[in-house]
């Protein structure tokens, strides 16, 4: 009997987010018929996917024991670079150029954190200010509007087998990163560094190189999200993706990846993004007054985590007593 309860507890911990997503889906479909319509579900999945992409990168950062507060700035700057390249070099080159820009900013983050020994929180905060400022200087504060290049919109509006492109990109990125985490040495090293940096270093892990790699990946994921946003509105400016970092961290945390590092739940991040997208969608469909939207999200965040934390606490207590 105790065994069954323990298993149930463990299952809850692993799948609690999925359960909440399911429950919320049922509630929303009961509250408004529009929710279950194909078009709306596609929207929810798309919105979830865009934030999930940068969330996946952030998952790695958090798993390695760090944060990246510069993803919003990276997203904006990469989008502006991509827009500059489209008329000059064509859409595919522009997209790759944007991703490379993200990678470079990530590299710089990684170098500052590992070589200059600056704490990730503050380092990325400083980089965020610098990159936003540089974006403003680069665009002269103006918005960049892309006209005559419908090819770029494939990032936001394209479909493969009826599935929107952002969703495909999110799933693809999750698959690649998942393989990397589980099957490669690099992936294992990321988790080792996140668990205990000192031990990892003593066991011969090239901690600096691992971290630089992680931040480069975060930069690329941020660039991808930024480019999708800019494709949606056909505009790039220094003002897009403000607050992206907090949303990214929120989806990672709701998804169950622990902030202390050492473990990564990519599927959790995908589900976390889906959950938050569903909440926003539900609030909009129900025309919930603007003033009530923010507090709803905050309360849901707290409740989800309180339940998760309480279960963990109980489970730990049970394990200790059983030992």
């Amino acid at each position: 009997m105790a065994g069954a309860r323990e298993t149930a507890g463990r299952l809850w911990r692993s799948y609690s987010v999925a359960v909440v997503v399911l429950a919320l889906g049922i509630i929303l479909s009961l509250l408004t018929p529009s929710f279950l319509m194909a078009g709306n579900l596609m929207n929810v999945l798309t919105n979830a996917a865009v934030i999930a992409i940068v969330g996946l990168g952030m998952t790695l950062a958090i798993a390695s024991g760090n944060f990246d507060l510069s993803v919003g700035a990276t997203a904006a700057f990469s989008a502006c670079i991509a827009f500059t390249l489209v008329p000059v070099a064509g859409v595919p080159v522009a997209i790759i150029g944007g991703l490379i820009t993200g990678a470079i900013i990530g590299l710089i983050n990684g170098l500052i954190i590992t070589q200059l020994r600056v704490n990730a929180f503050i380092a990325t905060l400083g980089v965020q200010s610098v990159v936003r400022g540089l974006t403003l200087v680069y665009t002269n504060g103006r918005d960049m509007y892309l006209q005559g290049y419908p090819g770029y919109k494939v990032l936001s509006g394209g479909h493969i087998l009826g599935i929107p492109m952002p969703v495909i990109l999110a799933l693809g990125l999750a698959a690649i990163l998942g393989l990397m985490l589980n099957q490669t040495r690099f992936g294992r090293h990321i988790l080792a560094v996140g668990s205990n940096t000192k031990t990892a270093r003593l066991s011969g892990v090239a901690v600096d190189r691992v971290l630089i790699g992680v931040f480069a990946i975060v930069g690329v994921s941020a660039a991808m999200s930024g480019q999708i946003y800019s494709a949606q509105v056909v505009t790039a400016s220094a003002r897009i993706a403000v607050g992206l970092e907090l949303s990214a961290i929120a989806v990672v945390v709701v998804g169950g990846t622990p902030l202390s590092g050492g473990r990564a739940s990519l599927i959790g991040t995908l589900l976390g993004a889906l959950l938050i997208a569903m909440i926003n969608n539900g609030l909009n469909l129900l025309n919930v007054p603007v003033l009530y939207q923010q507090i709803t999200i905050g309360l849901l965040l707290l409740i989800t985590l309180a339940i998760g934390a309480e279960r963990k606490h109980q489970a730990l207590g049970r394990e200790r007593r059983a030992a």
Partner: protein
Amino acid sequence: MTTATDTAGQRRPRTRDWALMWEKYGISAVLVVSWILAALLVPNFATLANLQNVLRTASFVGVAAVGMTIAIISGTFDLSVGSTLALAAIAAVWTGSQFGVIASILAGLIVGVAVGIINGLLVAKVRIPAFIATLGMMFVVSGFTLIVTGGNPFAYNAPSFIWMGNGDLLGLPVPFIIFLICALVGEGVLRRTVFGRQVFAIGSNAAAAKIAGVPVQRMTGLVFVVVGIFTGIAAILVAARLYSARPGLEPGFELRVIAAVVLGGTRLQGGRGGMLGTVAAAILFATLGNVLNLLHADAFWQKVVEGLVLLVALSIEGIRQRVEERMSRQMHEVKEGG
């Protein structure tokens, strides 16, 4: 903690003296130097009105940073101070306009403490990690503020109230005097009380502290209340300065507060730090913004410069660490060789 000679009886490397000096007084030294340079090079900097403006501006983030310093030393931090600031400021302004200045001060403090208590419970009792608990509270508090205010701003301009934020006493701005008093109190608590010692202990090694009998859970909860108190004071000062308050007041406040603490030399990992650095860092940030304005620096480049200054200031610590490591490695090689 540091002895004059190491275990082998040899003189410790000189870098360790400098390292400690830098950690404790580095930012203060940078501040003094920057003021001297600015006075010489920047037109209009060394005027009474301007310096008062700088010190005044530094005080709001500064007061909140006093509380945050204690939190960070104890190994945690609080992301909800920004939204708490807005709510407490609104409470102060509204209460003041109805019931007078004393009531406004009480209202601001009560709101700060109330949010602190909730944060403390979430982190200590429900065991949600501080980052998440305070992040969630940030949304909840700002959402709550939006609902009760309907998104509207509030104003209150009784002379005794606005004096707290705009007045001067003996040439120094009133909020700055309050800031210094808070810093002194905070420093006194850290160095002279059992609470302070326990804060350092928890920050260094929570598990060891627990074994040593420190009530870690209760202390963690109390720390958030302390943050709440100082945030409440900051909120009253901000409202007094602006003659008003609104939901969404001071966007990004929490990050600026944390940046001031970290720039001041208090490590994010916890276990070390102090108020002097926090005071100096808060003034330094205000000075930077002021200097850039007086130099008529392009607004877009100002963002770049502010970020770079933060990065450079913090890299100094990292570079120093690497230098020290290299020197101690060389010393070991010498020892083994000889």
